[in-house]
């Protein structure tokens, strides 16, 4: 059996002449969390829909849990999914909505309450879905995805509408599922939301996979930066010269100097600037996001 939960080769989807996903290639190993990242409209949901057999693909191939995506009936009973947000019957309670899906999928109906408690909805099980907040709806969607005790969990923007505490809970839930052996394929338009829990990343932009690999590979390449602003913008070039003379390269981005250096060098830089007669209005050591690091690596600023 393959060690890959998901594998796609040249997967494409065109709507007329417009490519929504173009020759996507990536793999997701079993038992890992893979972040699927890209801006809104980049093709994440379209890709997930193709993997779930909801829409046809116009090119390429793919396998899920070792089965071809042309035969979703062979693997979907082992897959849990929430695509493009939660969708349930407004007039039914949260529990009854899950019972509908449990009956349909042949899962134990009496496990519904336990699932609702796992996602923090135990005390609202009998409330109608239409009375739920956005965050509660999201949790119900995740509970539905967990129903088949999935080998592969595919979640599309699961943290939408959740407060920071809720986002943290979802991260912990996904981590615990992965620790139990579930492969998690989770999309987000914000890399920072999922970079810390993802073992690997697939980055999508304008329908094309621009990065597919281990998160660690990106983390190792993160370069700390000191962002400096001064009272007179004409002094920015002088700041770059000061940094250069001290062995640090930099560039001017908008109205600030970005110096490649660790936070420990910031006090020294501040003193050197002061000695040169430059008054700094801002001095901020920052670690760039993985996305910025990626684009720094590839030289792509689009």
């Amino acid at each position, binding site marked *: 059996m393959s060690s890959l939960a998901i594998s796609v080769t040249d997967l494409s989807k065109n709507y007329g002449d417009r490519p929504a996903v173009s020759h996507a290639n990536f793999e997701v190993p079993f038992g890992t969390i893979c972040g699927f990242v890209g801006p809104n409209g980049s093709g994440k949901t379209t890709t997930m829909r193709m993997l*779930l057999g909801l829409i046809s693909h116009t090119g390429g191939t793919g396998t899920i849990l070792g089965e071809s995506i042309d035969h979703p*009936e062979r693997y979907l009973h082992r897959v849990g999914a929430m695509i493009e947000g939660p*969708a349930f*019957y*407004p*007039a039914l309670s949260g529990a009854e909505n899950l019972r509908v899906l449990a009956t*349909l*999928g042949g899962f134990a109906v009496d496990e519904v309450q336990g699932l609702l408690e796992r996602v923090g909805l135990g005390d609202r099980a009998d409330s109608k879905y239409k009375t739920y907040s956005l965050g509660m709806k999201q949790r119900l969607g995740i509970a*539905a995805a967990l129903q088949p005790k999935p080998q592969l969990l595919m979640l599309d923007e699961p943290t939408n509408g959740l407060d920071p505490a809720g986002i943290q809970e979802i991260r912990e839930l996904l981590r615990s599922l992965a620790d139990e052996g579930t492969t998690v394929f989770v999309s987000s338009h914000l890399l920072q939301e999922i970079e810390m829990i993802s073992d690997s990343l697939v980055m999508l932009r304008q329908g094309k996979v621009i990065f597919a690999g281990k998160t660690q590979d990106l983390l190792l390449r993160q370069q700390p930066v000191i962002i400096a602003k001064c009272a007179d913008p004409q002094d920015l070039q002088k700041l770059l010269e000061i940094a250069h003379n001290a062995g640090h390269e930099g560039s001017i981005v908008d109205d600030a100097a970005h110096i490649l250096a660790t936070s420990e060098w910031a006090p020294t830089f501040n003193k050197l600037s002061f000695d040169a007669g430059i008054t700094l209005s801002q001095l901020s050591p920052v670690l760039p996001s993985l996305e910025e690091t990626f684009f720094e690596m590839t030289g792509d600023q689009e």
Partner: protein
Amino acid sequence: MIRVAFAEWRKLRRPTLFLGTMGAVIGFTALINSLLFLLLDSPRGNAREGQLINRGTLELPHGLVTGFSSAAGFLGLIALCVFAANTAQEYTYGTLRNLLVRQPRRITLLVGKFLAMAAFALVSVILSAIVSVSLAYGLSGKAKVNTAAWSTNDARIALLHAFINVFISVIAYGTIGMLLGLLLRSPISSISLGVAWLLVVENIIAAFVKHSGKWLPGQLMSSIAAGGDINASYSHALLILSAYLALATIFVGVLFSRRDVAN
């Protein structure tokens, strides 16, 4: 398929839907039977389109089910609304994607849904039959209708035939609703188009085009419910309507099984 049907039944048994629909069934059935018996001697008629069903007709064995057969059109329209809404709402709520993830065999999903809705329609027809027969007996005294023939074996056979014919007619209405729901993917559009065609367009065509009742689906469904009428014989109506529904089902089935689910 059975799992799909049971899952669908969970949605259909929701109290507001189930009790509301059955309430409408009872109400329409009671209204039609009341008009039939209480306006028996009215010169304006006591049945559909001002027709007059006289006391002598009601005293025959099939007089017991005259009201029930007359209610078929209303039962059918209720079925059309339920089937159309319950199908199209899967698109508007976005729940179709949940269903297809749990049951990727699309035709199995459709058949399962249809079976559950057919069971729902069966309950409504049984309820309507009980109300009709009860009211027929209850109102016969006031309308001075002799019920002796209603206790005969012929009356029981007439009741069985009427039940089967009304059920077939109601299922045909429901099937049209489901097909419109799948085609238009909107409850409001599918119900309004279905009702407008069956209640308005067909009646206009039937009024102006001679013998068109033999070919119009709504008229054929009425003919089936009545066990054959002046528009079309029972066998003709059954044959033509079956052909219509079979063709439409194949077309919509192929469309549903191939169409992307993108909402």
